[in-house]
């Protein structure tokens, strides 16, 4: 298929979607969030073989950093969170949009720094120990923050609403997520084409061999995770302003919801591939929205069943299945005559 045409259609669809589906603007924005967290999870999980269950830490931390930066542009953070939305705190347009902008950048950089520090400790762990270790960090962070009054404790933080038309606000946040999602996609597409991408795959396929060949394994693991954390932190920052109010355990450090969903998205679509996380995130999000609307009361059971079926029977996901059925689409060649070729020599 013509690639330019395909990308053209996708970009056009992305731009018109919130206008032709006005009732689904928030759901579409959330779908982009799922694409972002799935693509970034796959950077370490699929491409490098380090299955983190703690990426939600960067989402939650991004929220808090952005909120604190956004508030402090206009007010004293302690006074603001003390009032818990009770006082009258007005933000000018400049403070509001400046807060989102600076808050996002600060969130991304702070989370990238956190990834380097946490990674320094946890990248010594392999396999399930790394997964559990990183999950522990996210859980502990949620508990710590919910006991920290300066950032609102267990109540969380309430941020100002979008200063303008309610519907324009929804479109605004849709495009923030869509823009970030496209940026992440373009970034990883480029990254996987560089030597760095190849080194990530080498670490995944045989880390000991990679070390024996002199590859700076720890350095690349830290950089890869920091890049993922940077984007997740920004996604958290946008979420904080989109949601207006967020809590530490249910929203920010939501380990059992978004923290797990991002992994399921990747498995569903196919880990270690460029398009897998995107396809998986869309499938998962649609499935979730449909069950939430039509299977009320059973939605968690349906979601649990989907996770079990994916993990047990469909580990390689849609892309893995396609690669098996249509290897030529991926430019792969499979050797059939190894034995005879060797005999001839």
């Amino acid at each position: 298929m013509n690639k330019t045409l395909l990308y053209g259609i996708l970009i056009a669809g992305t731009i018109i979607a919130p206008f032709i589906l006005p009732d689904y603007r928030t759901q579409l924005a959330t779908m982009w969030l799922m694409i972002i967290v799935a693509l970034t999870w796959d950077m370490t999980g699929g491409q490098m073989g380090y299955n983190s269950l703690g990426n939600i830490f960067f989402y939650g931390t991004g929220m808090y950093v952005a909120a604190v930066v956004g508030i402090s542009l206009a007010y004293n953070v302690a006074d603001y969170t003390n009032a818990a939305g009770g006082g009258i705190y007005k933000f000018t347009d400049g403070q509001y949009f400046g807060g989102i902008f600076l808050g996002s950048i600060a969130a991304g950089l702070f989370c990238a720094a956190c990834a380097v520090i946490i990674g320094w400790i946890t990248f010594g762990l392999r396999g399930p120990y790394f997964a559990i270790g990183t999950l522990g960090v996210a859980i502990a962070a949620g508990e710590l923050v919910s006991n920290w009054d300066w950032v609102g404790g267990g109540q969380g933080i309430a941020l100002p609403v979008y200063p303008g038309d309610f519907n324009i606000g929804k479109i605004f946040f849709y495009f923030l997520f869509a823009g970030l999602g496209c940026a992440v996609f373009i970034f990883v597409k480029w990254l996987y084409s560089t030597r760095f991408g190849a080194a990530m795959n080498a670490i995944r396929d045989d880390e000991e061999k990679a070390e024996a060949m002199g590859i700076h394994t720890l350095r690349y693991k830290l950089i890869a995770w920091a890049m993922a954390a940077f984007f997740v932190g920004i996604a958290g920052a946008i979420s904080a302003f989109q949601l207006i109010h967020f809590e530490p355990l249910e929203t920010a450090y939501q380990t059992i919801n978004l923290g797990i969903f991002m992994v399921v998205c990747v498995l569903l679509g196919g880990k270690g591939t460029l398009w897998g996380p995107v396809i998986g995130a869309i499938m998962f999000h649609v499935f979730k929205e449909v069950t939430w609307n039509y299977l009320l009361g059973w939605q968690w059971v349906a979601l649990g069943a989907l996770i079990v079926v994916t993990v047990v029977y469909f580990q390689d996901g849609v892309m893995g299945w396609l690669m098996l059925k249509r290897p030529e689409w991926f430019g792969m060649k499979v050797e059939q005559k190894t034995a005879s070729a060797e005999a001839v020599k």
Partner: protein
Amino acid sequence: MNKIIEVKDVSKSYGGVVANKDISIEVQEGGITGLIGPNGSGKTTLFNSIVGYHPIDGGSIKFQNQEISKLQVQDIARLGLLRTFQQTRIYGAMDCVQNMLISLPHRKMSLNDMFSRNTKADYEKADRLLEFVGLYEKRFLRSGSLSFGQQKLLEFAMALMNEPTVLLLDEPTAGINPTLINGLIDRLRRANTEFGITLFIIEHNMRVIMNMADKMYCLAHGELLAEGTPDEIQNDQRVIDAYLGAH
């Protein structure tokens, strides 16, 4: 000739098993040194100690007069001291060319180089070395689908791609189709003469190593049993006994 690797009184135990006891050997720059010994005599353990795979219990290991026994695997590899594995390790999910490109020498790469694509020269070098080991026709095949012998050749080519100063080969001919062994011996020699790589080879097959090495060491039960030229080793009664006793 200079000694490029100098191992002195190195010991290594696994729990109660003494795998290496007070081993002292030297590898001459530019030559081919052989290491033989019955199965379980501690040859692989000595290689692992040299490349920093595990900490040693005592002794000293020098590479180009620099003490390396406290360094990590990656650091030693980047100094130009590389090893291949007895159990052959390649990246099975990648094709041969990708395996070669990921083996480019990282000692010369800055972070900036890492964020760029491989150059035309890199691809040409990969093709040339795949041709050298006889895998050119198979270069786009998933390397995991190659036969064991071909995987060994690929691992050898990957090592050459890395431009090591010294290459430690752990039983390079084990598992290789006997009809291909002469070709491999020839390539090992050419790696030494044409590319100027110092070789240190563990070999179980006596015929192979006698043909190549200019200096040999023989281990038995974790201790250095004998050293000398291939002729001296071949006629050493202790070596003959050790080999016969082991079978």
